[in-house]
């Protein structure tokens, strides 16, 4: 078995490590500007609203709706060959930032814009904990 079959893993920086630590605890964390309160994602050093670099990490509810999606049939990386086809969702989170994650728990034929979903957390082998999304019950 070659490393080519291993999924790519993130290489966090000092700016982004808390996001990954949050996922490992089952929390979806984003940055909130300490000066103007604006949420920002993905993690980065500066608030684009007021240019403050002071921020704190806040946990989101994990509730959101489907903004768009793609069903990935061709595995462009050997690490994803076994699970293809897989669905990548773009999600509008309730708090106003977006997230991406694979779909779990439903046939993609039933997807539509605005469908309500909720985050869940998955770990494969020794890999990082990653966000996935499931349809809200009911």
């Amino acid at each position, binding site marked *: 078995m070659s490393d080519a079959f291993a*999924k*790519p*893993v*993130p*290489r*966090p920086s000092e700016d*982004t490590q808390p*996001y990954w630590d949050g996922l490992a605890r089952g929390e979806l964390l984003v940055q909130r500007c300490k000066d103007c309160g604006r949420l920002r*994602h*993905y993690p980065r050093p500066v608030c684009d609203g007021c240019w403050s670099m002071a921020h704190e990490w806040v946990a989101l509810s994990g509730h959101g709706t489907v*903004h*768009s*999606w*793609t*069903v*990935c*049939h*061709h595995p*462009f*990386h050997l690490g*994803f060959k076994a699970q293809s*086809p*897989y669905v*990548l969702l*773009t999600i509008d989170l309730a708090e106003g*930032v*977006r*997230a*991406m*994650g*694979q779909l779990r728990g439903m046939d*993609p034929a039933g997807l*539509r*814009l605005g469908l309500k979903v909720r985050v869940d957390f998955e770990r494969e082998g020794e*890999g*990082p904990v*990653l*966000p996935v999304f499931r349809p809200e019950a009911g």
Partner: protein
Amino acid sequence: MADSQAHGGGLFERAAITGIGETAYGRGLQQGSALSLQMQASLAAIADAGLSPRDIDGVIPVATGAAVAEDFITNFGIPDLRFSATTPMGGASCVAAIQAAAAAVASGICRHVLLPIGRTGYSGTRIGARVHEMPQFRTIGEFELPLGNIAPAQIYAPMARRHMELYGTTSRQLAEIAVTTRQHAILNGNAAMTKPLSIDDHQTSRMIADPLRLFDCSLESDGGAAVVVSSAEAARDLRQPRVLVMGVAEGHPDSPSVITQRPDILKIGLGKAAPRAFAMAGVKPSDIHVAEIYDCFTYVVLRQLEELGFCAPGEGGSFVEGGALGLGGRLPVNTHGGLLSQAHLAGMNHIVELVRQLRGHGGAAQVEGATLGLVTGYGDMGDGSIAIMRRA
């Protein structure tokens, strides 16, 4: 200068494309390294202009390409290179380089800027598989690559899906773009794809990243292409009919490094660049005779047609129906076969083709009477660039 003020000033008709050059295009032609391919195309473009390689005093290599400015000094014996730059915008780079080159010649820094590209995208490492090595992909490399968002087809597919869900755009409408582009590649002759393509061929091709099928995707190619951008004054003395740059611009979308976080994921940088280029040129979309539109994916052509103002947002699907983009259609597009069917030269081949059309040298694919046209670039998550040109 009076004209320049009337048209919004800037770089209006301060530069001309004076030389064009191409190698044979294909897949696995084994005709040389990426470096030698762009040297070959560059020498052809310089000869086409009627210049000596030593006349080149500016060069804008493609940022992620196989050559740097030093290679051209060394290989061509350039005595005094006065200007070098890169415009790292992925597929928008080549047309954005026209803006940088036009600024350089208009300011008097230099007179003749070479824009070269050469790649072995088929024989060498596939470009689609190594985008994450580029620094502008750092964000999705950390946050989305581990989720399986790997290649451009997957990265752009959610834009196409949302367009379909909001506006009713269909895969058959995307097929129209692929089919027309293939017809043009066959007319051109120097193209990787030489067999006719039908709507059904497209509809039965395998799904890559829904809604994008195989024939919605561009090629991985081997080849080289180059153009020479000269000051409008210097161009008067050269060999070919002058093709003047009337308007040129680049644009960067909000959240340029990651589409997921873009407030409106349908927005692209061309939406900012196109109005500026049209204002500089003093023309409107209905004046355009031929358009060479960056076509890494069929959907990307459709969306750019909307942002260019050829139709309203959401109406791209109906706009392209019925062979509208073919010769004799309402707007002939990608008359060389584009990245979809000629070769993926990151759009340098689109610039070459626009100049060829405006010179009246389009051969079997010539748009009759074409004297005014435009070319676009698109890349790196939606950066955009545009140049509007006319034959003097």
